[in-house]
Each structure stands twice: as structure tokens, then as C-alpha cells.
């Protein structure tokens, strides 16, 4: 085997006390049927998946989404629905009490048009929950000074958005995410807005440690195949990053000898 493949063998991402060999994280939102979720997880090899917490609607079905997530897959409860740090902390406590482990994705949204995260409230919630021993994964707008504060507060990673949730527009915030990758010591996980496997590959090529993809997989006509496609793209992008790409050039650089054929 060649060297990059050997490197990939031992290439794991550590978050909290867990090691992840697969750098595609997925979500459980918007699947047409819950029964597709375990098949998507198997096809993609994703080792961590998000879930949300809501009030029970007594009039509707009583299926438990956790029954569709294999035991070996790490649950990443999110704090969606929280509008301030207090609500996010409360959701994290409930998730942990419910036996979902210590991982928590902080998602605090006050802007309903673009669903942009409230970075300031997210920092406050991160400070509280990291002190309580949670593995805190804050979902934020990519902002280097804020990300440094998150790192200092004990965040296990920083999760900048590529584009608004569910927009499928890819890495619109690319230049800002690059600053995080270059300057933070905690992992950078690109979350939200990635619509195509090539977007995920692009994020991994530029050095992101992982990506989180929900809508693009769950809303595809074939979520199982799309999960696999994203997984391959993430692995390809990661391998390319580890293999160290060369810079772009303004002019051609010959790949064959420049001498004439018979001269």
C-alpha cells in the first residue's frame, strides 16, 4: 500500500474520550422515514449523528428515534430550539440525563430568516457546559477571535457554518473558515450548508477535521447512496489534504519535457 493510505489507516479524530475514524458526521433531521437512518449510517460509515429534543406531541406517533441509531454510533444531541444560553444549558442537562452521553452541539438561534447562530450566547453556554464536563461542540459563524474564546472556554471543537442551514450552497464562508483551521488548536468541523459531496471534499482538502451533513443527505432522493457519496468525498478530501497539494500557479507548468519531440 502507498503511504497516504497507511496514513489514513491511523488517521483518527479525537473528540472528548472518543476516536472517530470516519470524518463525516450526519444528522437525523428531515428523513422521509426513520427506517432509512440505520441504512444511511451503514452505507456512510458515519460514527456520530445529531438528534434534537422537543416537547412530546401527545396526539402524534410515539416512535423513539433512538431505536433507529445503532449503539456504536455516538449521539450528538443539539440544542436547537434554544434562543438563549440558559435554554441551551437546560437542553444539554436534559440530554445528558436521558442517557445520551456527554456530547452536546450548541445551537442557539435567534434569527429565523437565515437561522444564523448567536455567537455570543453560544460562547456563554460553552463556558458553562465545558466546566460541567460536557464535550462541547459549538455551532457558530466563523469568527476567529470568538473561536479563540471558545477554545479557551474548553470547547472540544469549533463548528463553523459553510452557508445557512439547509441552503446547499457550500463553502460561502471559506476564507473565514480557513482562518480558523490555520489558527486554532481544537478541531474545526464544518457544519451546515454543504449541499454536495464536492463541497465536503473541498472542506476536507483545505484542512477541516470533519464535516457535519444532514439536509443534503436526508433530503436526497436516495439518502443511503448520498450518505455513501459524502463519505467517499470526505475520505478523498482528507487523503488529498494529508498528501499535501501544491499551490495553484498563474501560468502553465509543464508536466512533459519542454524539448521538441525529435530535437
Amino acid at each position: 500500500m502507498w503511504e497516504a493510505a497507511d496514513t489514513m489507516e491511523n488517521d483518527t479524530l479525537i473528540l472528548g474520550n472518543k476516536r472517530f475514524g470516519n470524518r463525516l458526521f450526519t444528522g437525523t433531521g428531515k428523513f422521509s422515514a426513520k427506517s432509512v437512518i440505520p441504512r444511511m449510517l451503514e452505507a456512510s460509515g458515519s460514527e456520530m449523528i445529531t438528534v434534537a429534543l422537543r416537547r412530546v406531541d401527545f396526539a402524534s406517533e410515539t416512535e423513539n428515534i433512538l431505536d433507529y441509531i445503532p449503539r456504536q454510533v455516538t449521539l450528538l444531541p443539539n440544542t436547537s430550539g434554544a434562543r438563549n444560553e440558559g435554554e441551551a444549558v437546560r437542553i444539554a442537562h436534559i440530554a445528558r440525563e436521558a442517557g445520551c452521553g456527554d456530547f452536546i452541539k450548541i445551537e442557539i438561534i435567534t434569527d429565523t430568516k437565515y437561522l444564523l447562530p448567536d455567537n455570543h450566547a453560544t460562547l456563554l453556554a460553552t463556558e458553562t457546559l465545558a466546566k460541567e464536563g460536557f464535550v462541547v461542540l459549538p455551532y457558530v459563524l466563523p469568527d476567529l477571535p470568538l473561536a479563540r474564546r471558545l477554545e479557551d472556554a474548553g470547547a472540544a471543537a469549533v463548528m463553523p457554518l459553510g452557508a445557512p442551514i439547509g441552503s446547499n450552497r457550500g463553502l460561502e464562508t471559506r476564507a473565514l473558515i480557513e482562518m480558523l483551521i490555520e489558527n486554532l488548536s481544537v478541531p474545526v468541523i464544518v457544519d451546515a450548508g454543504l449541499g454536495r459531496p464536492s463541497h465536503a471534499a473541498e472542506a476536507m482538502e483545505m484542512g477541516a477535521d470533519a464535516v457535519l451533513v444532514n439536509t443534503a443527505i436526508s433530503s436526497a432522493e436516495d439518502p443511503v447512496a448520498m450518505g455513501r457519496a459524502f463519505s467517499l468525498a470526505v475520505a478523498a478530501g482528507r487523503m488529498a489534504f494529508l498528501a499535501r497539494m501544491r499551490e495553484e500557479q498563474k501560468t502553465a507548468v509543464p508536466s512533459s519535457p519542454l524539448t521538441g519531440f525529435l530535437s
Partner: protein
Amino acid sequence: MRITVNGCEEDISPCSLLAFIEAKGLAASGAVVEYNERIVRRADWNRIQLRENDRLEVLRFVGGG
């Protein structure tokens, strides 16, 4: 007696929290309960007798990204 469940008032006969959840058909649903703003472990549901003006939040995990 009257309690508040997920923001709505409800008239119920005195019973344990476990019996209330079972009557709602949620015993096996992975529901999580906050009882008067304190999270109550499933193992403790049968020890809690619901009282007048109690407030329950009954939550569950759902799909989300």
C-alpha cells in the same frame, strides 16, 4: 386535580408520574420528564406522586441536524 403538562392545563386523578406517562402511551418512547423544572430519572418515576399545580415537561428525541 389540575396539573400543567407541556404548557397546557390538564385535569387528572391522583396517580404516580409513571402511571401518568404509561396512560399517555409513552412508557417505551424514550420520553424525558422535567418535574417542576427538575429532571427526573426514569427509575424514579414510580416514586413521584403527582400533586395539584405540578408542572410537567415531557420531552423526547426527534430528528434534527
